[in-house]
Structure formats: structure tokens, C-alpha cells
């Protein structure tokens, strides 16, 4: 009994001591060789794949963490100097550029892939195979809120069925881009739609509601082909369905966009970060196809590699998304630098 009581006190003392130690240690320990990445959930699957393969190739000598805070949230950590790389599903914004400047963070902008935004309806929807940008605008613009609630209000040829809208959350780069491409102004949209950061919620919503219409990244559609019906987009040159080919050659317009990683210049000087970027750009094409995104042409990766080696800092976009960017335009922008 006495012994047990003593054990009890020893245990109590040890835990008290542990608390004290934990309280007093300062975070001066070297962080080791950890590459910290955060940002967009759209870019996440690509970077996760690269991180997985890279860590395997390095046999654990370098650790890579990939977070999901959204494009904006990722940049917030990036300009505070907390992360080495930031994933972004849109170019860096003016405000974020300023914050980076204030924080003394210089960055190298590397386009890594293309993502098409897919517009989808329920498979039982037999009246729509294609929509014009004008029709989409009529549905999504702020003035449509609580006014456009039925399909036949958009196009008289469509039936009198309630229109239910689904889209990604307003903090996502996908939402920013869609509104800019369709409505004409980033973040300007009607508010009465089901918004979710979790694309599965959107898939479920569209798959169970006959009058549903929604949009999200093409890669997510590619995993749920049997539950959704893809809508062709008519941007003025006939109806085009998103596919690897139409996104890559820029004919799926205006709903295809480049996605990026931003590398902090300070971090880029660390050998493990340099190795990671080299590994990324060399294996990008193969890994990006695996996770159902659309890779850039090989030439673009060479140009990106060059851009990285020469440490070209700053953005090619001047703080704005360029809607309907074709791959050629992007390359020209690259070459000008």
C-alpha cells in the first residue's frame, strides 16, 4: 500500500516536471529538413502526389508537409514566412503581393498544371447539353438572386423545373475564378446557392436533385463520371466539353485556368527545396495525369525550370486573374521575362 502510494507520487511528480520542461523549452530547435507547403485544396492532390514520391525517393531524409488552407489562407501563411511553398488555384492578388512585400517575402511563380472548371447537371436532366456563357451569367449574377429560380426563366425552351444551384465556398480560388470568368467580376455572385468547401457535398447535391446545376474542378468530375452529367460551354465558338485535349489547347474557354505554386526565394536557396522543385518539374507531367489534372506541355515545364534556376521573382499576372488564358499566352508571358 505504501509502495503504491509512492508510485502515485512519483507519477504525479514526473508529469509536473514534464509540464515545466514543456513550458520552458524554447522553439530554438532546428526545424530539420522540413519543407512546409500550404494553400489551395484544388492544387493539393498534385502536390501531395509529388510530396509522396519525393519522400520515397529521398528515403525519408527530407520531410514534406502539405496543408489545405485554401489559396487565400495559404498566402496568409506564406507572407508571414511560415511556409516555403504556397499552392494557388489563381494568380497572387494585388493585396497579397503587397503583404508579401511588407513581409519581405520574394517569390517565384511557377505554373504547374491546368484545371478546367466543369459545369454539371443531374443525369436525369434531359434538356441541357450545352450552355452559353450568357446563360450561365443570367443564372449566377447577383441580380439573379431570388429572381431566377426556374429553368424556363433562363431559356424558354427549358422546362418549368426549380433551379437548384451548387458551388464551392466563397473563400476558394475556384469560386473567384468562376465568378470572374462568367459574371465578369471576381467574387460577384448571387448568394442563394448551396456553397460547400467539401466537393463531395456538391457531388451528392447535384446527383440527387433533378433541377440541380453546379460547378467545380474537372478532376473531381473525372472521379464521379457516373453520378453527374457534364454540360458543354459555349464561349462564342460553339459548345465545347471539358477534356484533357480541350483544356490543354485552350478551346474550353473561358472555364479553364492555370494553377500555380509559389516558392519563397529565401527557401529556394535551401538545397532540399531546390531538389524538391527539380523533382516536381521533372515528374510533373506523369504525376499530374495520375491525379486526373491536365499537365502543361513539356516545354512549359522547361521554361518553369529555367525561371526557377534564374530566380525570376514576381508574378506574370500583375495581381489579376486572366480569364480564358490559353497555354500559348501563358508561354509568351513566360518568354518575355
Amino acid at each position, binding site marked *: 500500500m505504501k509502495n503504491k502510494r509512492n508510485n*502515485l507520487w512519483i507519477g504525479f511528480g514526473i508529469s509536473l516536471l514534464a509540464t515545466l520542461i514543456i513550458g520552458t523549452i524554447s522553439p530554438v530547435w532546428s526545424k530539420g529538413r522540413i519543407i512546409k507547403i500550404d494553400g489551395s485544396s484544388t492544387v493539393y492532390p498534385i502536390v501531395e502526389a509529388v510530396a509522396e514520391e519525393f519522400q520515397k525517393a529521398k528515403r525519408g531524409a527530407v520531410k514534406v508537409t502539405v496543408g489545405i488552407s485554401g489559396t487565400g489562407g495559404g498566402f496568409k501563411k506564406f507572407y508571414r514566412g511560415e511556409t516555403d511553398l504556397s499552392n494557388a488555384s489563381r494568380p497572387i492578388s494585388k493585396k497579397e503581393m503587397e503583404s508579401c512585400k511588407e513581409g519581405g517575402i520574394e517569390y517565384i511563380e511557377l505554373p504547374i498544371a491546368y484545371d478546367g472548371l466543369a459545369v454539371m447537371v443531374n443525369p436525369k436532366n434531359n434538356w441541357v447539353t450545352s450552355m452559353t456563357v450568357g446563360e450561365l451569367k443570367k443564372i449566377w449574377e447577383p441580380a439573379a438572386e431570388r429572381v431566377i429560380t426556374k429553368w424556363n426563366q433562363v431559356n424558354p425552351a427549358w422546362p418549368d423545373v426549380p433551379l437548384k444551384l451548387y458551388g464551392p465556398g466563397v473563400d476558394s480560388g475556384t469560386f473567384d475564378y468562376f465568378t470572374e470568368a462568367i459574371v465578369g467580376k471576381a467574387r460577384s455572385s448571387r448568394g442563394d446557392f448551396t456553397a460547400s468547401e467539401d466537393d463531395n457535398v456538391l457531388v451528392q447535391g447535384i446527383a440527387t436533385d433533378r433541377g440541380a446545376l453546379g460547378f467545380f474542378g474537372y*478532376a473531381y468530375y473525372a472521379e464521379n463520371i457516373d453520378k453527374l452529367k457534364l454540360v458543354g460551354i459555349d464561349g462564342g465558338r460553339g459548345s465545347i466539353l471539358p477534356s484533357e485535349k480541350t483544356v490543354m489547347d485552350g478551346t474550353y474557354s473561358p472555364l479553364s485556368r492555370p494553377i500555380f505554386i509559389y516558392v519563397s526565394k529565401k527557401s529556394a536557396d535551401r538545397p532540399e527545396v531546390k531538389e524538391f522543385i527539380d523533382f516536381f518539374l521533372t515528374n510533373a507531367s506523369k504525376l499530374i495525369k495520375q491525379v486526373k489534372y491536365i499537365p502543361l506541355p513539356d516545354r512549359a515545364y522547361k521554361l518553369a525550370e529555367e525561371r526557377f534556376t534564374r530566380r525570376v521573382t514576381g508574378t506574370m499576372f500583375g495581381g489579376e486573374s486572366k480569364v480564358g488564358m490559353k497555354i500559348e499566352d501563358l508561354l509568351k508571358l513566360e518568354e518575355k521575362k
Partner: protein
Amino acid sequence: MPMDNDKNIQEIRKKIALNKLRDHLFWIIGLLSTLIGFVLLFTLIIDLLIDGFPRLGWQFFTSYPSRFPEKAGILSAWVGTTLVMIVTAAAAVPLGIAAGIYLEEYGKKNWLTNLIEINMNNLAGVPSIIYGLLALGLFVYYLKFGESILTGGLTLGLLILPMVVIATRESIRAIPNSIREASYALGATKWQTVKDHILPYSFGGILTGMIIGLSRAIGETAPIITIGALTFIAFLPSSPVTSEFPFFSFKWLLDPFTVMPIQMFNWISRPQTAFHINAAAAGIVLLLLTLLMNGFAVYLRYRFRKRIKW
């Protein structure tokens, strides 16, 4: 008058029958209410088991997360959960017990202790995300611990601290005053009384409170996501045991981590159904852990209660 009497008896019988009916009715309502809770929990467990059970295996526990669902596992998640729980316990238990003892044995009944008491009870009911926000400001930005095991553990420690305090106080209160008086009568000081009598007698209850607190902390997702630990982690923190002197290291405290509920959250938000199966399997592991911990708490309470004879 016999007529009147008959009528009276009939009325009383009617009343009794009605009351009996009401009694039965309530019995049925009570049973149904109990069953609903039980059936819901049961369906959930069965659903998880059907989805996830085939996925459970050695490989699942020894693999890192991966983009291929069949290769993915929960190695970094369960190691992370274990380490975070150690920090949580180390932070919350000594503080909670000390605070509980003070409030029960030392603190005078005045407005200050009253205020602390009211606050303690309120804190136990604060939504966990609030603790996440506090931790983000305090641990991540102010103390610059980053998104580390230390931050995660301390955050969850704060979360369960009120529970530990309340459990400590309740089990101390259950000790009859005669024990204290007997101890004082023999000339023991307050500290000796606490050390040799109060604490050992209440330790079962304190442990139970601690384990129930930990089994709540183990499933918490919101505060962990708030501190920014929603990450792909395919490595383990540095080892607490090293080959060189002094043979242990606290470096792991500042390493990035992931925990089981975060890993589940990540898998659930994937498009492929194979990942949802992984999430279900991780859910089974988490559920088993919680059940085990609660079971252990029940056992401890039973054992300590049996040992006490006064």
C-alpha cells in the same frame, strides 16, 4: 346511499385505470427514447464496420497516407494521436488536480473562488473551436510553437482542464469529513492530510475524469484544424529516445503532426469511394480507442472503490 357509493367506487376505479394507462404510456415513451439513442449508435457502428472492417489489417496501421487508397494507412495519424495525448495529459492532469485540490481543500469560500467555480463550469461547456482560436493566437503566433505536437497537446489540454478539475473536486467532495477530522486529530497538517488521505482516496475518481477527458480530446477535430494541422504528413516525428546521451529528446514536441480525426476528415473529402472506406476503417480504430479508454475508466473506478474501506 348504496347507489352513491357504487358510483364513487366506479369513479375511483376509472381513475386508477387511467393512471395505470398513463404509467404504461410513459414506460413506452421512455423505452422508445432509450431505444432511439441505442439504435442510432448501433446503426452507426454497424455501418462503419461493414464499410471499414475489411480494410483493417497490419498494412493499414504501418503505412503512411498515400494518394493510392489501397496503399494508404494511418501510421503517422496514430503515432501523432498518441504523442498529442501524452502532452495533453501531461499538461492538463497536474494542473487540473492541483486546481481541484486548492478549490476544495484550501480555498476559502469568497467571491474569488465563487467566480473561479462559475467559470470552471462554464469553460467545460465552451465549444471546442473556441479553444482552437485561443490556441492559434497564443501558442501558434504569440509563443511561436508553430503547428506542432506541443501546440496540439496544449490546446487539447486546455480543453479538458475544466473536466479534470470538476472530476477532482467531485471525488474529493465524496470523502466524508470525518476522515479529515480524524487526520487533523492526530496532528497531521493540511498537506499531510491531502497527501496521505484525500488524494489516495479520490484518485480513482480523478483518473476516471482524466480518462474521460482524454477520450473526448482524442476525437476532437475542430481545434486541431483551427491551429492549422490539416496536413498531409507521411513521416513520423523525431524519436523521443536517442542513441546518444542523454538518451531522450524533446525534439518531437515541435514536429508537425497529424491525428486520426484529421486523417479521417482528409479521406472523407476525397472524390474516390476507396478513400471513404479508409475513413470508415480509421473511424473503427478511433471508436475502439474511445471505448477502450472509457472501459478502462469504469474498471479503475470499480477497483479504487473496492480498495477503500472506511
